[in-house]
C-alpha cells in the first residue's frame, strides 16, 4: 500500500512564500479548500488510534492527589467567577446608564478619584487571594517534597525521543508505554529524560512533572481501586507527553494500567518469561530478531544478556501490549507490518531506521513479536 504523502515540508515553504504574494484572503481559503477536497480517512497512515477506556480529562480525578487538585480548582473557580461578575455587572450597567444622549455634548462632572473606593478594591482582592493562597500552600506541602513512603513501589520513568520507558528496580523489569501498577498502593516515580525535556502526565492520576535530562523529579500518588474485573487485564488510564520534544511530540503517549494485587503479581511473574517459540514462522522471526538486538532486548533471550543500556524499548511482553509505537496505533498484525515496513510512516522523525525487510521476513517477525511474547496475565 503506497504511503500517501502529506504535503512535504519544502513544497509547503515555497507555497507559503507565494501565499504572501497572493494576499491573505485567497491563500487561506485555498489551503482549506484543498484540505477538505483531499481528505480521506481510510488509507491514511498518520491515523492515530484511540481505544483507551479513560481519555485524558482532568475533570474526574481518581487519586487523592488529583482530587485535592480538583477541590482546590473548584474553590479558585468559584472565587474567580465571583470576581468576574463583580467586574462585568458594574461595567455593563455603567455602559448602559452613562451612554451619551443625542445632542447633549456638555462635558460631564469631572470626577478625579475617591480614596475609599481605591482602598476597598485593593483590600478586598487581597482578602480573596488569601482564600486561594492558603489552600494552595496546604496542597503544595502535602504532596510536593514529601519523602517517599517505605511501602511505595519505586518506578524510574525515563523519557526518550518519542517513547516512555518504565523501570522497576525492585522487580528487575524494564518495559515501555504501559505503567502496570497494583490498586490502592503508593507509587513513587523518579522522572528523568534520556535526551530532550519531556513531561510525564496522566491527567486522571494528578499533575504533570517535567522529565529533564540531568534532573530527577519525583511524583508520588496512591493508585485507585481496580474497576474492571481482573480478567480484562486492568483499567487503562491514558497519558501523553506535555513538553514539546521534537516532531513526534504528539505521538508520545503512555498508559497507567491498574491491576488488582494478584493481577499485578501475575504480571510481574509473567513479564520476564522467555518468549514461547512454537511455529516455524516464529522460529524464523527469532532469527531475524537477531538483527534487532543492537537496540532492543527481550528478557530471557540472548539479547538481554548483552550489557549496556538499549536505545530501543524493551520488548519482553510486547505481544500483550494494547498499542505499539508509544500509543500511536493499535497492536494489530497490519499495524506492526506498517511499522516494520517504514517506522517514519507512523512516527515522523522516528529514530528507528528502515531495515528494508522483505514481506515474508516481516510476516515471520510479526508473528514472533506478537505471538511468542504474548502473555496473558
Amino acid at each position, binding site marked *: 500500500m503506497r504511503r500517501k504523502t*502529506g504535503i512535504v*515540508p519544502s513544497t509547503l*515553504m515555497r507555497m507559503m512564500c507565494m501565499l*504572501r504574494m497572493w494576499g*491573505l*484572503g485567497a491563500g*487561506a481559503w485555498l489551503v*482549506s479548500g*484543498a*484540505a477538505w477536497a483531499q481528505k480521506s*480517512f481510510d488509507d491514511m497512515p*498518520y491515523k*492515530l488510534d484511540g*481505544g483507551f477506556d479513560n481519555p*485524558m*480529562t482532568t*475533570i474526574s480525578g481518581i487519586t487523592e492527589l488529583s482530587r485535592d*487538585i480538583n477541590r*482546590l*480548582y473548584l474553590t*479558585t*473557580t468559584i472565587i474567580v467567577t465571583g470576581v*468576574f461578575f463583580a*467586574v462585568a455587572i*458594574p461595567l455593563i450597567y455603567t455602559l448602559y446608564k452613562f451612554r451619551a444622549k443625542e445632542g447633549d*455634548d456638555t462635558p*460631564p462632572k*469631572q*470626577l478625579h*478619584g*475617591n480614596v475609599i473606593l*481605591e482602598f476597598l*478594591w485593593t483590600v478586598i*482582592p487581597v482578602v480573596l*487571594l488569601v482564600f*486561594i*493562597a492558603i489552600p*494552595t500552600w496546604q496542597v503544595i506541602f502535602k504532596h*510536593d*517534597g514529601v519523602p517517599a513512603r517505605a511501602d511505595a513501589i519505586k518506578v524510574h520513568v525515563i523519557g526518550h*525521543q518519542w517513547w516512555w520507558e518504565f523501570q522497576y528496580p525492585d522487580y528487575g523489569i524494564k518495559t515501555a508505554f504501559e505503567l502496570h501498577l497494583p490498586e490502592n498502593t503508593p507509587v513513587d516515580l523518579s522522572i528523568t529524560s534520556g*535526551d*530532550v*525535556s519531556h*513531561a510525564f502526565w496522566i491527567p486522571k492520576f494528578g*499533575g*504533570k*512533572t517535567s522529565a*529533564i535530562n*540531568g534532573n530527577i*523529579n519525583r511524583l508520588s500518588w496512591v493508585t485507585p481501586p481496580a474497576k474492571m474485573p481482573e480478567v480484562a487485564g486492568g483499567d487503562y488510564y491514558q497519558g*501523553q*507527553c*506535555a513538553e514539546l520534544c*521534537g*516532531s*513526534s511530540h*504528539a505521538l508520545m503517549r503512555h498508559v497507567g494500567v491498574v491491576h488488582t494485587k494478584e493481577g499485578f503479581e501475575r504480571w510481574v511473574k509473567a513479564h520476564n518469561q522467555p518468549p514461547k517459540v512454537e511455529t516455524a514462522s516464529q522460529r524464523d522471526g527469532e532469527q531475524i530478531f537477531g538483527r534487532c538486538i543492537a537496540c532492543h532486548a527481550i528478557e530471557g533471550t540472548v539479547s538481554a544478556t548483552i550489557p549496556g543500556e538499549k536505545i530501543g524499548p524493551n520488548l519482553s511482553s510486547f505481544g500483550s501490549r494494547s498499542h505499539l509505537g508509544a500509543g500511536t496505533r493499535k497492536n494489530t498484525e497490519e499495524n506492526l507490518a506498517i511499522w516494520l515496513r517504514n517506522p517514519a510512516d507512523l512516527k*515522523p*522523525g522516528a529514530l528507528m531506521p528502515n531495515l528494508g525487510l522483505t514481506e515474508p521476513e516481516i510476516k515471520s517477525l510479526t508473528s514472533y513479536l506478537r505471538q511468542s511474547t504474548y502473555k496473558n496475565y
Partner: protein
Amino acid sequence: MSASTHSAGYSKTGIWSWITTVDHKRIGILYAISALLFMVIAGIDALLMRTQLAMPNNDIISAETYNGLVTMHGTSMIFLFIMPLSAAFFNYFTPLLIGAPDVAFPRLNALSFWIFLFGGLLLNSSYLIGQVPAVGWFAYANLTLKQYNPTHSVDFWVWGIQILGLASLIAAINFFTTILNMRAPGMTLLKMPIFVWTTLVTQVLLILALPVITVACVMLSFDRAFGTGFFDPGAGGYVLMWEHLFWVFGHPEVYILILPAMGIVSEILATMSRKPLFGYTVMVYSSCAIGFLGFAVWAHHMFTVGMGPWANALFSAATMLIAVPTGVKIFNWISTLWGGKIRFTTAALYAISFVAMFTFGGLSGIMHSSPPIDTQHHDSYFVVAHFHYVLYGGAVMALFGGIYYWFPKVTGRMMNETLGKVQFWLYMIGFNVTFFPMHFLGVQGMPRRIYTYAPDQGWNLWNLVCTGGAYLTALGAFLFAVNFFWSLWKGKIAGNDPWDGRTLEWSLPSPPLEHNFDVIPTVTHLDEWWHRKYSEDGKRKVMAPSPKFDPSTIHLPNPSFWPIVLAFGILMIGTGFFLPGFGNAIAIGTSVTGALVVLGSGFAWAYEKP
C-alpha cells in the same frame, strides 16, 4: 506650511527620504506598517495550524512544519507585531504628548527601527530555505542543541531574537531619556498623560530585562557554534538554566506587551467618556508596581520542573500579588466610564472590550497561579486560552483601538465608523468563538503544540469550533485592511481635535508639522488640552491666540543614512555566525566585515555634522 529650516539638499518625499528619515513621526509610521505586515504572516501561520487541528488525524501539514508554524506564530506575533506596534505608538505620540520637538536621539531612533526590520527579515528568511525554527517560541534548552536540531533553524531564531532585542534596547534607552529629560516646562512627572507613564515603565522593563535574553542567546549560540556545554547535561551544563534565564526576561516581556495597551485604553476611555481618568495617581503607582513585581514572578512558568515546594509556594504568592494592582486598574477603568457621557465609537468599543477580555484572561491566569492547579494546566490548551485572552483580547484589541483612535491625527482622515463597528464585532465574536472553547480543551487534557490527536479523545467538536472562530477573525482582519486603505484616501476629513481630546497632541494640526510644536507649550495641569478648552465648571473658554511662530527658532536634525548602514552591519554580524560554505570562511568573513561596517558607520555617524 512654514518652511522649517533644513540645510539644503535633503529631499522631502520619496523613498530616500523614508530611508534616511530621523523624524519620530515617520519612524512611527514605518514601525506600524512593518508590524501590520508581519501580523499578516503570523496570521497565516495561525490559520494553517487551526486548519490542521480542525479534525483529528488531519494531514494538511506534517509534524515538523506544524512545529515550525507554532514557533514562528508565537515569535512573530510577540516580537514582530505587538512590540513594534506599541513602539509605533511610542515613537509617534510620546514627543507629542510631552511637548517635545523630537526624541532625545533622533538618529539612534532610526537605528533601532532599521535593526528591528533587519532582525524581523532575518527571522522570516528561515521560511525561504525551509529551515523554520521548530522549538516553540521560548526554545527550551535541550531541544535547541546541535544534536537534536542540527539544521540552522534554531540559529535563525537565536540571532533573530538577539538583533530584535538590541533594537528594543536602543529604543528603550532613547525613550527613557526623552520622557525624563525632554518634557515641556511645567509638566512634572505627575502631570504627564497616563500613556506616557506606561511607556516609561515599559522602557524600564525593556532596559532591565533585555540583557538577560542577550546573555542567554549568546550562551545558546556558543553552544551551537563552539560546542560549549552551557545547556548540555553531558558536559555538566544545566538544562533548566535556559528556562530560568528566558523567563527572567520572559515575564517582564509579557508586561512589556500589556502595559502600553493599558496606557492606550486609559487614554481612549477618558476621551470617549469626556471625563478625566479615575484615580490617575493610583493608576500610575499600580503600573510601577506591575513593572517592579514583574521581576519577582518568573518561576510561575516553571512550577512543574521540580523546584521544590518552597520555591513554588513563594512564586505563587508573588504571582497572586500582581493580581492586586491589575484589579485596581480594572476597577479604575470602570469608574472612568461611570458618570461620563460615553460615545460608542469603534475606538471606545475596542477599549471596553479590552477591559472585559483582559479581566477574563487575568482571572483565568489567577486559576493557574497556584502550583497544584498549574500541574494540570501547564502546557495544556487552558494556558493557550489564558494567554490569548490576555495577549489577543488584551494587547491586540487595545492596539487596534489605538489605531482607530489616533488614525485621524496621523493621516488627517477619520476611519469609517460603520465598517469599523462591523469589523470590531467580527473580531470580538471570532475571538471568543476561537479561544473560549480552548478552556474546555485544556481541562479535557489536550496538551499544547500537538499537530494531531486521536478521534476518541472528546476534543473533536471544540477544535472544529476553534477553527471556525479563527476564520471569522481572519475575515475581521481582512475587513480591517479594507477599512485602513479605504480611509487613507476616502475617509472623512478630521480636524485637529475630532474626539474633543484631553492631551496635547490634539492641539496640533493633523498630521502634525515636522517640528511638532510651533512654540513649546508651558503645562499647568494634568490633561492640559482639556483645561485650555474648558473652564472648571465645564463651559468652553475662548482660546488664547497661539503666539506668533518664527521659523528661526526651529532647527531640525538632518536626515542621515548611517542608521541603516550600521543596522545592516549588525545584521551581517548576526547572519555571519551560521552562514555555511568553505568551512566557515564565509561565516567569519561576513561577521568581520559586519563588525568593520558597524565600526566605520559608527565613526562616520559620530563625525557627521549635526
